[in-house]
């Protein structure tokens, strides 16, 4: 032990006991929860990009009519099943500006299909802020100005035209108006039901909990697709497209709530054990106050994340129903309705662009999943 005496060490730096006991230890945490969540969320690049993309999508919805060169049901009888056209800038080495080549259709009476020939000698410049068919901006303001449209004598079918000669690109933009909002309405319904039943089950426990849980299990055990089919088949066929749309989204919501209710219930159970909830109860707070002031704010963020993750299911549900012809029906336009036209394998083989509406569905569903994942990862800003 004697040799250890030279191992004696005392830190030479001055040390003082005085500390300011009011100084925040972690001033980076001194911010409302949403700010902390945002700081964390910012680091998830994929989720951030997805969020911005989705935000842009939803912002475009009310002005879809302005961006689309055609209106959804505007027919060009001379251009049935026209293939996608490209927009170019240079012609023969000189700058022309955005232009298209005119196309002409000829009936191929041997194969019974339309063939299109492109006249590559005359570039025709696109027109901007031009007059076209009437539409309503924000669903209210009548307008006929379009961002761009085809010049006289030409067409601009960016993603081709369909069986009736309608522009697929324009129809996708209009279809987004229904396909993207069906998720939002559905999720609102499912949110209300889910929070109510989940909170009842989680807070009161006992019999209430038992009954709600069994109801959830029964709902979950029903095969989804046939149930959707049955419910949508019950929608009177003489209802207008808008009424059908609302009913469809509500049906989707009614079938989706059990998952959310379970999430709410389990979150409730774990939060109830937190000491700040017990403290509020000991202070004499009534159950309604405890739920409103202590429980809800603390799991709202979790709910938003799980809602984001269930919107894609709604969008896919609408698409599936409409694809099968049981959801929205023409003249309403949604991505599912458009895909309904692409049911025929032969037509996809020849006119592959009729299946293009699958693209926005894939992209939007992926974006929602990335966004939801990023949100979920940044929800607990108090743990680093």
């Amino acid at each position, binding site marked *: *032990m004697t*040799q*250890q*005496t030279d*191992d*004696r*060490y*005392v*830190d030479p730096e001055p*040390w*003082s*006991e005085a500390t300011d*006991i*009011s100084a*925040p*230890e*972690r*001033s*980076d*945490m*001194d*911010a*409302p*929860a949403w700010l902390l969540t945002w700081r964390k969320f910012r680091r998830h690049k994929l989720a951030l990009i997805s969020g911005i993309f989705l935000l842009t999508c939803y912002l475009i919805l009310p002005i879809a009519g302005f961006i689309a060169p055609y209106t959804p049901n505007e027919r060009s009888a001379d251009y049935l099943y026209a293939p996608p056209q490209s927009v170019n800038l240079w012609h023969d080495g000189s700058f022309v500006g955005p232009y298209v080549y005119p196309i002409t259709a000829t009936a191929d009476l041997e194969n019974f299909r339309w063939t299109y020939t492109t006249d590559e000698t005359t570039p025709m410049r696109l027109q901007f802020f031009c007059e076209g068919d009437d539409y309503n901006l924000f669903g209210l303001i009548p307008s006929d100005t379009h961002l761009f449209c085809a010049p006289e004598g030409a067409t601009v079918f960016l993603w081709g035209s369909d069986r009736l000669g309608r522009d697929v690109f324009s129809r996708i933009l209009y279809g987004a108006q229904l396909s993207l909002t069906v998720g939002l309405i559905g999720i609102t319904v499912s949110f209300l039901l889910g929070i109510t039943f989940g909170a009842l089950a989680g807070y009161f426990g006992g019999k209430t909990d038992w009954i709600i849980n069994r109801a959830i299990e029964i709902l979950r055990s029903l095969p989804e697709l046939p149930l959707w089919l049955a419910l949508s088949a019950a929608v009177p066929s003489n209802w207008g497209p808008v009424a059908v749309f609302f009913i469809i989204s509500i049906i989707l919501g009614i079938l989706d709530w059990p998952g959310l209710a379970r999430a709410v219930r389990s979150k409730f159970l774990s939060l109830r054990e*937190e*000491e*700040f909830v*017990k*403290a*509020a109860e*000991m*202070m*004499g*707070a009534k159950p309604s*106050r405890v739920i409103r*002031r*202590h429980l809800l*704010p*603390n799991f709202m963020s979790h709910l938003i994340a799980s809602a984001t993750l269930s919107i894609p299911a709604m969008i896919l549900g609408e698409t599936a129903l409409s694809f099968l012809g049981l959801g929205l029906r023409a003249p309403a336009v949604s991505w599912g309705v458009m895909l309904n036209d692409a049911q025929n394998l032969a037509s996809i083989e020849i006119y592959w662009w009729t299946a293009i509406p699958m693209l926005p569905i894939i992209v939007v569903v992926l974006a929602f999943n990335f966004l939801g994942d990023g949100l979920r990862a940044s929800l607990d800003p*108090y743990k680093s």
Partner: protein
Amino acid sequence: MRTLLDIDGLTIGFGAGEPVVRDVSFTVGAGETVALVGESGSGKTLTCRSVLRILPEAAQLREGTISYAGKDGTVDLLSLSERKMRSIRGDRISMIFQEPMRSLSPLHRLGHQVAEVLRLHRSIGPTEAKRRVLEKFEKVGFVDPARAYASYPFEMSGGMRQRAMIAMAMIAQPEVMIADEPTTALDVTTQAQVLGLMRDLQAETGMAMILVTHDLGVVANMAQKVVVMNKGRVMERGTAEQVLGSPAHGYTEKLFAAAPKIPNVAEPPRISTNTGDDVILDLRDITKSFTMRAGGWRKPTVITACRDVNLKVLRGKTLAVVGESGSGKTTCARVALGAEKPDPGGEVLFHPSTDATPLPVHAMTNAQRLQFQRQAQMVFQDPYSSLSPRMRVMEALCEPMQIHQIGNPAERREKAAAMLEWVGLNPNMLQRYPHAFSGGQRQRLSIARALTLDPRLLICDEPTSALDVSVQDQILTLLEEIRDRADLSYLFISHDLAVVARIADEVAVMRAGVIVEQAPPAQLFHNPRHPYTKALIAAQPKPDISRPIDLALVARGAGSPTTWPEMFRFDGPDAPALRTLEPGHMVRCHA
């Protein structure tokens, strides 16, 4: 003595930030115990984990070397390949973790988990491995090694699991064992026994040990060398005699001053006019049993959490209930607050003021309940979960007044600011969020919140057990100040006799659901009569190397009530009555 481990200039940081461990150096000789002492955030755990390179993923080893002079020559542990590192972990250098409840896999039998170490590092058959494991199990104190071998971790208590962990860490006969707060999660009597076991085993095998702890008492009992750390830096290093005997650094001195001690000399009791008739909370014949449903096939089992508890909290005084986990102290507190209903026959009476009619806590009208909730408040154990993260400090402090509709917003804000000053904090904290603050600060906030309703009685459920010793000291001082300033009465629940020694006017020691001894601290600590109380006092590690834990005394009282000396022995419900041996001193014993 041969130097086994040489940690030199170790610096660890996270991300781009300042290093959290800075220039830490010390050596570990063969067969020697080095204690790393420090409070939370001092970097002691990171330092010891870097020896085995089991750091969190984000941690960067920025500088320094750890050279290990094992049997096969000297290697630098920080630059060794992952493959070679694996052959060192568990074999040459092993580790014991803090949480015995979480560090064993619940799906595997204890014996198999321990034998796995041998399977990984030795080429021996299963029979031989089992033989060695059983041998080790016997060494670490399992009465029936074969049964322990075949049992799952959840069948064992925390102390037994920690013994199994020790067996696992020692089975390969390592040269160095790293123990990261090995006894912090254990009850104090179990801690004493586990520490004794570790010391014996170490003496027997001659391995070196790095012991990470926050408790100077544990250091005094175990270590030959001490490294005191604070904020990632070494404050002081030397032999145990040097550091504990004559601390040279201010921080070490501060740690010493803050360490709770059981007093050597009886302190004069606080002068008070309360002669014993002015009771604020009266627990009468409280028995609380829980019925465990074991499914429809078997008979439900009844568990009695506490039995025949009679306690009186005197106005302006502190009654402390002390016991280890499972002793029934928390159930008592919950019954006292009305959160649990006692079995028929017991009642709890609350006397709002000296002459007022008592309120029966479990049979109150709504108006009476509101009155009770205003006058009896609670301080919780975990400062990190007792304040809602979504509420500003002001909202949290004003909430009780909102619930009871006291004052207008301006008056509430004023009261909240006043309460912040009472607990020693600056009122400009009102606009901040609780998550910006440390555990001690948040415990102050939670005390301030309890005070906003001007309560008469405060129930403190282990208010300091989640805090560092120096902070614990401050909070206890604060609680004493507030008690005198606002003439509060406390019901103080704790597992730590030393904490209670300081603040209580009357101490009740609980074990197995009954009060075994009750007396003022002066009598209890200087003339303990019950073997369990004696064991508790003896098991408390003292930061003084000349007073090691008396393990024989601990062993005599720490077992189950059936193993106590004849005078105190009982089995199940037929406990003897509490007898008054001298005025104010009651012991549960046969006549």
